[in-house]
């Protein structure tokens, strides 16, 4: 158990080190002055003295290893740099944006896992039926469809045509709501992006759950349970599904990077004010420090979710809990 967590810890530390080092190296490796990337394209208009002063204030006149140490120190104290485009410290912007992404991704993850698990279980029980084949076809379609396109179609049909849902944003602008009215307004704005992200996340979960369930259903103890005359429902949910769930935990974790990627494009389509949308705005404005900070925050979020899942995993798998 301790060794399992230690091994995982090393892996996440490596991921973090890779992300941070890449962020540090990219602006300094590119041809031309790193100032263009770190202080905005306006530096072309500065005088020589101003440029030297700016280089000094950003610490870019120091040797590379000292810059790296300083960079790590800044990150450790929550200093993500400064957005010259928006004229604000990046950590401030991220604090505003991150909750929206966590709301969207968290709910989508929850919904997609629940639906994928139940759907995969039921389909595996009726393997080879029309329901099974139809489900496989539908999941293959959503697995192969670009998420942003699905979002655009949803807006076109449910927002622009039918006017059931708003076209953009997370809340109606210019209206201050409180209590349940605010919750309802937020949920109304969240519905379409959430549906899109959930729909493209389900197939991965569904296919793995179905496969895992098929493997479990071939085991002897399922035959025993059936032979004992237990109700079908009991065999499916208490004997088969609980064991088939174990590989799902790993898959859900591996999917986190995929969901974070999906959220980036979906937030863009729906103008949803999360970190993914921030990344898109930064790309449009060539606001490199913000691009880097968003990448860093998304990586940290994925790692944090992985750590959480690793800590919870022993609760569902007694073999890990008791292993030494």
């Amino acid at each position, binding site marked *: 158990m301790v060794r399992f967590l230690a091994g995982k810890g090393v892996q996440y530390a490596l991921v973090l080190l890779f*992300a941070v080092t890449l962020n540090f190296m990219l602006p300094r490796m590119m041809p031309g002055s790193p100032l263009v990337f770190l202080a905005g394209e306006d530096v072309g208009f500065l005088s020589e003295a101003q440029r030297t002063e700016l280089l000094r204030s950003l610490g870019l006149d120091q040797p590379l290893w000292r810059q790296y140490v300083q960079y790590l120190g800044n990150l450790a104290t929550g200093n993500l740099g400064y957005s010259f485009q928006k004229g604000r410290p990046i950590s401030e912007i991220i604090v505003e944006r991150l909750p929206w992404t966590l709301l969207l991704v968290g709910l989508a993850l929850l919904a997609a896992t629940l639906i994928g698990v139940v759907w995969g279980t039921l389909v595996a029980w009726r393997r080879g039926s029309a329901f099974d084949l139809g489900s496989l076809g539908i999941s293959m379609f959503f697995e192969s469809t*670009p998420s942003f396109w*699905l979002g*655009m179609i949803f807006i076109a049909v449910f927002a*622009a045509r039918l006017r059931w849902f708003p076209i953009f944003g997370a809340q109606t602008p210019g209206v201050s709501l409180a209590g349940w009215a605010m919750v309802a307004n937020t949920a109304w704005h969240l519905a379409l992006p959430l549906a899109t992200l959930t729909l493209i996340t389900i197939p991965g979960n569904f296919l793995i759950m179905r496969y895992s369930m098929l493997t479990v259903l071939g085991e002897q103890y399922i035959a025993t349970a059936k032979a004992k005359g237990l109700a079908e429902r009991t065999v499916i949910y208490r004997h088969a599904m609980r064991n088939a769930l174990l590989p799902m935990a790993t898959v859900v974790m591996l999917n986190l*990077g995929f969901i974070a990627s999906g959220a980036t494009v979906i937030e863009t389509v729906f103008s949803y004010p999360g970190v993914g949308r921030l990344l898109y705005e930064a*790309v449009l404005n060539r606001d490199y420090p913000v691009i880097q900070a968003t990448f860093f925050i998304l990586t940290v979020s994925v790692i944090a979710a992985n750590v959480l899942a690793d800590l919870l995993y022993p609760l569902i798998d007694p073999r890990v809990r008791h292993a030494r």
Partner: protein
Amino acid sequence: MSTVTATAESAPVRVRPRRRRLGVVGVVGLALLILLVGSAIFAPWIAPYNPEESSGNPFAAPSRLHPLGTNDIGQDILSELIYGTRISLAIGFLAAIVAISIGTLIGTVAGYFGGWVDAVLMRAVDVVLVIPFLPLMILIAAYVGPSFWNIILVIGLLVWARPARVLRSQVLSLKSLDYIDAARALGAPASRILRLHVLPGVLSLSLAQFILAASNAILIEASLSFLGLGDPTAKSWGSILYYAQVRSAFLTGAWLWWVLPPGLLITLAVLGFAFTGFALEEVLNPRLRGMS
């Protein structure tokens, strides 16, 4: 010789007959691919207009002259889609070649040498698999700039991890076979064993992985282009959707002919590659046979 072994082992071992056919799924996938590759190759003959010329009024609805209408600068959307097939498929294929070359190299070396080489390489694979790939690609693409070859490199350099893992396990099972032991016992150098005995054993599986990587690459390219990081001089299906989004085509009736078709084409291409890949994998990978 074979009769001797057959009689020596009294209990007949039941061997599942090797599947040589692709099955319905594989045939459908292959048909889709042939259709798309065909229209990419013969684009100049199929497309009614040159997609880079404005051949009608801007924002025109479908008519006999323009079956799928025109875009914001009067270019024929059907012709754009047909020519876009070239860009989307080319990027998919080339990025997959980059990814599979790296994946095969790393998977083979890790599986064959084992030990600390394996440990280090597999750690690298895990790092690539955990990191949120699209933000990483956006970051790199924003720095190196949007161009045809840069996009191929960025996708190829980040999609190799999964094939590397699959190929490594194939090499691990190959390594335990007698003829590899025999070659090693005869004193053949590792480079010779890898080249003559291991590589031929994994090549067929690399082909299946190549096709799956291509389907992945097409989807990723569409996302990057949609975010405005595509090559502005070579419009893919994703770039067409980028312009449709920028011009708010999905808020008007134009979504039917400007937004729907490119997305369906992307889906069909991804499905075509995925179906072919799955079917090939099942034929080529002995351990998967009979499992689905």
